């Protein structure tokens, strides 16, 4: 059974998911009057940027026989992995140093992960469809 979801439905559900993530993180700050978890949003929003800047370069520049240089891609992967792990570790470190509470720590970590995964799922859904058919995007 081919489950065909229209791209508009995908966009709407992803944006609802993203808003849920933001809601969780902002609630985790506002309920306790403690604005340290906002650093978590910053880290998780910075996280997909290196992957997209250094992402898979097209084959236009490299020759057929030259060794494939992966340095840009590797740097992008390294920085993205570093930011995602930082985003998970930051609430835990703040909780251990008694800067925020445990509920706030859990909420901001889950909210940050929701934000990051919705950005990743968005680029995953629409990356291949842009390359394949550009006419059917809102059909």
């Amino acid at each position: 059974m081919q489950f065909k979801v229209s791209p508009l439905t995908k966009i709407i559900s992803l944006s609802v998911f993203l808003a849920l993530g933001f809601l969780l993180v902002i609630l985790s700050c506002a309920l306790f009057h403690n604005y340290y978890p906002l650093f978590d949003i910053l880290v998780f929003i910075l996280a997909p940027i290196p992957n997209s800047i250094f992402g898979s370069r097209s084959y236009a520049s490299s020759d057929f026989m030259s060794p494939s240089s992966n340095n840009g891609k590797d740097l992008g992967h390294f920085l993205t992995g570093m930011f995602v792990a930082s985003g998970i570790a930051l609430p835990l470190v703040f909780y251990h140093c008694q800067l925020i509470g445990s509920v706030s720590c859990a909420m901001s970590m889950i909210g940050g992960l929701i934000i990051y995964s919705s950005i990743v799922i968005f680029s995953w859904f629409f990356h291949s469809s842009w390359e394949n058919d550009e006419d059917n995007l809102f059909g």
Partner: protein
Amino acid sequence: MDTDHNDRLFRLPFKLPTFHGIRTFGVYLSGIFYALGFWVFLDAVLYSKYSNASDVHVTFIDWIPFLCSTFGMLIVNSIEKNRLLQGALNSEGGSSFGDVDSNMAWQARSVLFCGFALLAGGLSGSIVVLIIKFLVKDYTSYPTVGMGVNNVLGNIFILLSCVVLWIAQNMEDEYSYSLTL
């Protein structure tokens, strides 16, 4: 019977997992380890500032091993063309490419030496800080000694990150020749 061991790396039937995405996975893992090391160290710094019950604090001296390890990792991993380097590390030129002359080999060896020395110096410096600043002065109970232990753990994670990155970048070279004409 003896020809059985020719094409295997280990004596026991044990194969390193090789699939196509393992290089990417290795680079991600290295980034995760580096972030873990950084945050474990930052845990010690923030703990010392905000919830410290004793009178020993994290000062700039504690940052020095971390900075050494980071610089060492940057230097070691900025050597490019690892494939050419393996010829340089083994013998004095004589590889089939002709690029590896002894000048570049000497430079590569000295840069690598500096990088590895900085890495090892960072780890041993953090152990020295732990011993001199905490253990000798009898701060041996948790969580106060946790500040020194976190410093050592952070440097160990950075060293692990550098090792995983080096292995991941070198591992692919045998399997990347998939030219289809």
